[in-house]
């Protein structure tokens, strides 16, 4: 019987099946400073970690993005410092590998594992974070879980799950000029909705994804959760293997060959069944921005803020009205008339080297007229960017070049918007208050964010790029 990539991974990970629930073996568990609840539960119940070598801890959510010379001791805020110290202590106590604040590999938990080769095709990866979906770009099954489930994974290296429905999103063709993977996933979310993928795991298929870099695939899979899906995945191919070869945790020599044989058998078989299919053309997608307070509330940058009075469904109209109100916008205004106070380039969605290259290509065209931050997703990304001179481009254009972490994406390390401030952000969530209480977020691609910094308002990056 023809099988999907997802079914093949499930089948290899089932330990037992009980009344339609599967006990699945978990290959990797990823935690960050916020996972203290899971460690607390583990200790409360007197349990130990079953496979400490398969659990990895990251300092990303709480670490400051400036003044890092003094490591943990340099964190001014005591509460935040305590979170980082707590994770260090938990990692040491339980024998878990920690990518600590002063580690040369430090970075966001969805950026470091691919860089280190920890993320591999065919694996089952659980993270204490919903954007664990990112790792699916490598053809593995990766999803976020809560503290209770994480405690279960740590204690047993397994997890109970039901089989989920499968959805295939097929995109064909080359994206147009100035259109990035971020625009593609925002367009997919605008089409299927923030609950369109609920109960499903998405496989992204078609020539658009085949021709996409690993960085781009990660951006797309990352935001599967914003479409309601717990996981997104792309079948592994030569692009995947080329990215992985030689990474520290990747198999080597004969083991690499054995792994390749397994990996190459993973892609979905011809004729395999999906519960739902969605098809789109890449050429139809324009650079996107969100105007509202959920990631579905967006559209092409050439468009307008919608008018709730034009919306027939009363609940949707109410939802749109409430979003426009929170965002302090006027119905019918051009998206490019929205002024911004701040720009954030970074996060697990867009904090990789290609993202910084795309942003720098725009930043070199002008000067930032509002505070604009560039926060690499990891130390290796930061070093790579510096080797390529991107930091100089950003600094010359008046952008701030900061230390890696989640930063303004989730606003718990001290980096945050003030009430009423408006930010063009390359992160993934525009929920009310996500970037700081009372802050307003517009989600965009790295190039679009850089364009907004230069113009001080949401801008069609194609205009800037065409002028060159």
């Amino acid at each position: 019987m023809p099988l999907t990539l997802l079914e093949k991974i499930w089948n290899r990970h089932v330990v037992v099946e009980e009344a339609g629930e599967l006990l699945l073996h978990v290959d990797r568990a990823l935690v960050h400073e916020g996972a203290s609840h899971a460690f607390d539960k583990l200790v409360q119940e007197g349990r130990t970690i079953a496979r400490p070598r398969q659990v990895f801890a990251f300092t990303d959510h709480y670490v400051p993005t400036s003044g890092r010379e003094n490591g943990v001791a340099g964190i001014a805020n005591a509460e935040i410092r305590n979170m980082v110290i707590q994770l260090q202590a938990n990692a040491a106590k339980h024998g878990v590998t920690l990518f600590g604040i002063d580690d040369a590999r430090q970075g966001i938990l969805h950026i470091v594992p691919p860089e280190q080769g920890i993320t591999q095709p065919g694996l089952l990866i659980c993270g204490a974070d919903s954007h664990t979906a990112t790792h699916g770009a490598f053809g593995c099954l990766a999803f976020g879980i809560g503290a209770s489930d994480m405690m279960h994974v740590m204690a047993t290296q397994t997890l109970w799950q039901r089989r989920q429905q499968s959805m295939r999103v097929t995109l064909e063709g080359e994206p147009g000029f100035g259109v990035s993977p971020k625009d593609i996933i925002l367009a997919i979310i605008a089409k299927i909705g923030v609950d369109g993928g609920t109960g499903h795991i998405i496989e992204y298929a078609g020539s658009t994804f085949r021709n996409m870099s690993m960085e781009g695939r990660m951006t797309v899979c990352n935001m599967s959760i914003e479409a309601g899906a717990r996981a997104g995945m792309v079948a592994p191919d030569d692009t995947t293997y080329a990215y992985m070869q030689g990474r520290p945790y990747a198999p080597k020599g004969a083991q690499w060959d054995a792994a390749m044989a397994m990996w190459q058998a993973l892609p979905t078989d011809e004729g395999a069944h999906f519960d739902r299919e969605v098809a789109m053309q890449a050429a139809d997608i324009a650079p996107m921005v969100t105007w509202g307070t959920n990631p579905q509330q967006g559209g092409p940058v050439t468009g307008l803020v919608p008018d709730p009075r034009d919306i027939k469904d009363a609940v949707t109209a109410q939802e749109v009205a409430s979003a426009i109100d929170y965002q302090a916008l006027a119905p019918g205004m051009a998206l490019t008339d929205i002024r911004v106070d701040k720009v954030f380039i970074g996060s697990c969605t867009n904090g990789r080297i290609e993202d910084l290259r795309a942003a720098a290509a725009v930043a070199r065209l002008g000067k930032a007229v509002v505070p604009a931050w560039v926060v690499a997703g990891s130390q290796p990304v930061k070093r790579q960017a510096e080797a390529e001179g991107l930091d100089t481009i950003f600094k010359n254009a008046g952008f701030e070049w900061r230390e890696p972490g989640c930063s303004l994406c989730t606003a718990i390390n001290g980096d945050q918007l003030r009430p009423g401030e408006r930010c063009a952000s390359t992160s993934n969530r525009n929920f009310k208050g996500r970037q700081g209480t009372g802050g307003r977020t517009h989600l965009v691609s790295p190039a679009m964010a850089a364009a907004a910094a230069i113009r001080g308002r949401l801008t069609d990056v194609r205009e800037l790029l065409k002028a060159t």
Partner: protein
Amino acid sequence: MNPFTTITAIAAPIDEPNVDTNQLCPTRFNKVPRGPAHARILFHDRRFNADGSEKEHILNAEPFNRAQIIVADRNWGSGSSRESAVYALYEFGIRCVIAPSFADIHSNNCYKNGLLPVILGEAQCAALRAQLRDNPGATLSVDLAAQTVTDAQGATHHFEIHPVRKKCLLEGLDDIARTTQYRDALDAFEAAYKNERPWLQA
């Protein structure tokens, strides 16, 4: 985990789709160890001003401040995987949320903490919310064994639940107890698996 069997309690209607876990528990409260403080964290930034004074919010107002059931709209609990969103609901006193749909991770987190997520149709939820708005303090009865929600007017709505989830909630069982029954299967699985992918433990 505390078991869930039946409950008859005041229900609060929340007329908003896509309520995300950032609203249920703003990110900065993630680090708070689980405890009674979570009652105030629920919808914190919607319920309280920066100076700590109360804003107008249904869960601040009598009789809804005593609600143990929420009737919500679609896609409840989207966003972050934070389990503290469930702690906030639970410590506030909520034992059951009824909605047309739930975000997957959040619904899972509810089950793991003895909080019952009930899926009813969009129209049913809308009708229940209207009824609760018009009759503040009206109660709903939820019977997990019978898989029913009964409203104050006596109408009964049936809901579906996975048999394993139902059993775990009714008996207050956690997953670890279930898993450890399969120790032998686990050992056999792991031996074969390790052989196949030895580099994973390096």
